[in-house]
């Protein structure tokens, strides 16, 4: 989990003496690892096959740039290729010249359409527009109530009728009201069902025919596996989608579905959903997504995650301290709570590029946090600031005070020292797998 792709590739290229051109056999060996990384990230098998083939053509015979290793070079080529594949589109929603702009959201059940609809509406409202939500999922129990309640939360009107009503009727009603009330954006929340459900697909086709949406957006779950291609293909073929919104990106899924979907539809990913709160819809960054799919570190996401969990000032100081290598026991304690809010420590640390190697055998158990806090609380101010003064009699006192053992105290100090060293390396760029990348 911690071993990043570039490290694995460096292993392969270690045999390669000196610098020179990337030879085919080395590239092939390296691409095996790339293939594995992509498959682990749930990129569709066929997409991976094509992709690897393309990268091979690009990589063989390339000159290795001075300052980086051949492994990094291949990763860079892979990374660039991924970026260009996913980066074709613009993360914008185009508005219709004559309002209202109709945006139709489609997708499987459970992909997050209703939440996304509310997030979009909130975004438009913030931009000074007058959106209206339309509840066209008249099938799922309480789907209408869900949208209504979200509408209330963001203070955006929701047009709905009753469960079981024909979506075309609901839409017509909504359109009239929108015109009457001067609503300039209509967001259609449609019923989610399986893409092989003929009845649903026809219903959506009819709706699209009637509503002539400016944008038809596929809402897809970032955790989707190999089936992402079938889903995307089905929706694109029947409804000619304009783009994709990838949801649940705040989890730890590598999100290979993004690449699969873009590959089979040729349509851009416009936004990503990164939380259950209604303002967590963000523009899509191909470079970050590429890093994530490849399982490489992502410092930007790390900082963003920190910001989501702590307030801005706290996040800034966390980032700064990580960078400056100021890291006392007090920092550790203060950050434990912040880090806990960001999710498991392993995930957080895996976001720091190049940390993989240094993290081996340094597993920090989330549950150990309570103990760690107790131990730190039993330290004096001086001890917290300068761990080197903690001798064995101090250790005994700390252990007694915190209800732990000297072994526990020793372990914490050891882990703390290791962390400190590790952060120092990261700062100096020694451990950075790919310092030349914009993360």
């Amino acid at each position, binding site marked *: 989990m911690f071993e990043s792709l570039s490290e694995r590739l460096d292993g392969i290229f270690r045999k390669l003496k000196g610098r020179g051109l990337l030879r085919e056999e080395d590239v092939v060996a390296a691409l095996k690892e790339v293939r594995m990384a992509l498959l682990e990230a749930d990129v569709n098998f066929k997409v991976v096959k094509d992709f690897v083939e393309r990268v091979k053509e690009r990589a063989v015979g390339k000159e290795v740039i001075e300052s980086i290793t051949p492994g990094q070079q291949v990763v860079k080529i892979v990374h660039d290729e991924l970026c260009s594949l996913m980066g074709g589109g613009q993360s914008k929603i185009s508005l219709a010249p004559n309002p209202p702009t109709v945006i139709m959201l489609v997708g499987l059940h459970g992909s997050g359409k209703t939440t996304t609809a509310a997030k979009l509406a909130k975004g438009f409202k913030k931009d000074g527009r007058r959106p209206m939500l339309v509840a066209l999922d008249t099938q799922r129990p309480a789907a209408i*109530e869900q949208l209504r*309640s979200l509408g209330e939360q963001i203070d955006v009107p929701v047009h709905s009728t009753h469960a079981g009503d024909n979506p075309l009727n609901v839409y017509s009603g909504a359109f009239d009201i929108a015109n009457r009330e001067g609503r300039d954006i209509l967001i259609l929340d449609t019923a989610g069902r399986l893409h092989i459900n003929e009845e649903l697909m026809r219903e959506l086709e009819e709706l699209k025919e009637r509503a002539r949406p400016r944008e038809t957006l596929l809402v897809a*779950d970032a955790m989707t596996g190999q089936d992402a291609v079938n889903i995307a293909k089905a929706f694109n073929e029947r409804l000619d989608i304009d783009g994709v919104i990838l949801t649940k990106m705040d989890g730890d*899924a590598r999100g290979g579905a993004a690449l699969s979907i873009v590959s089979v539809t040729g349509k851009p990913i416009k936004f990503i959903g990164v939380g259950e709160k209604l303002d967590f819809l963000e523009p899509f960054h191909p470079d970050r997504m590429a890093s994530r799919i490849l399982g490489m570190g992502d410092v930007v996401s790390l900082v963003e995650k920190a910001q989501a969990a702590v307030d801005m000032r706290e996040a800034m100081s966390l980032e700064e301290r990580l960078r400056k290598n100021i890291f006392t026991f007090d920092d550790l304690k203060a950050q434990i709570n912040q880090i806990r809010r960001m999710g498991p420590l392993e995930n957080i640390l895996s976001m720091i590029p190049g940390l993989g190697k240094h993290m081996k055998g340094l597993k920090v158990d989330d549950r150990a946090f309570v103990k760690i806090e107790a131990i730190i609380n039993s330290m004096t101010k001086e001890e917290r600031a300068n761990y080197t003064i903690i001798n064995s009699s101090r250790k005994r006192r700390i252990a007694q005070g915190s209800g732990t053992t000297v072994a526990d105290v020793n372990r914490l100090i050891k882990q703390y020292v290791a962390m400190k060293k590790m952060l120092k390396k990261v700062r100096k760029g020694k451990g950075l797998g790919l310092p030349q990348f914009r993360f």
Partner: protein
Amino acid sequence: MGLFEKLKQGLSKTKKALIGNVKTLFKGRKVDDALLDELEEILIMADVGPGASASITEALRERVRQGKISDTDELESALREEIRGILKQGHRVMCSGEKPYVILAVGVNGVGKTTTIGKLARRFTDHGFTVALAASDTFRAAAIEQLEIWAERAGAQIIKHRSGADPAAVAYDAVVSARSKGLDVVIIDTAGRLHTKSNLMEELKKIKRVVSREIPSAPHEVLLVLDATSGQNAINQARMFDEAVGVTGIALTKLDGTAKGGIVIAINKELDIPVKLIGVGEGVDDLQDFDAKSFVDALFE
């Protein structure tokens, strides 16, 4: 219709079942490296995952080397054996005589928890048991209303608080009220949460704690609801929900789509959590018991 027939029918909705492609692949082929490579691809395409797929085909290769497999028929039965060997088999989700029998349903957002609970409740009431549903998803908009509709469909009672209330308090009320009324089953619906959000996982632990305090053996079943369309991340989901609340069984939903659900093989390769229920359609009867043997058989029919 027998159980097996039903399962087959359910799975046939996927048109190609889990790895129905295998049949097509094997037709008229001899067993060689190329065939095994292609088999590995099929497994990966079914979300079995690169690691588990490689280990399955490696085991088959080994058998070929030992001369135990000479034709595709033997390869097929060896493949069945390998998959069957990985899949765990648990006991059925049914009351165990303890009253109330408490089921806690957990999972990430949008996997079909509430729907699965609705169907499960109906199955209990069909068997003559009395059921209470606990609306512990107090977070998502209209989640309580959704559960209410299912409770009505299933003829179950519902215990609910206001939206935004403490989920553990709802679960507590449900268990206490079920006990005093002598109800047979309590099913607790929880809010969907990503397994990476530690505060939300803590909330889940609290629900479990509160229930266990009232009835020490409860929850008798902790069902993790998984979406068959999900990829390798489902392994993380299973691992982390298990660590938090001790998952006793998996309910695999949305198997009626084109997703093959091979992710359960990947999960069972790493974790000892049996699949107990599978959802193969939107109807109330489309929630079925998982039987590893029938499941594997159905894959090849």
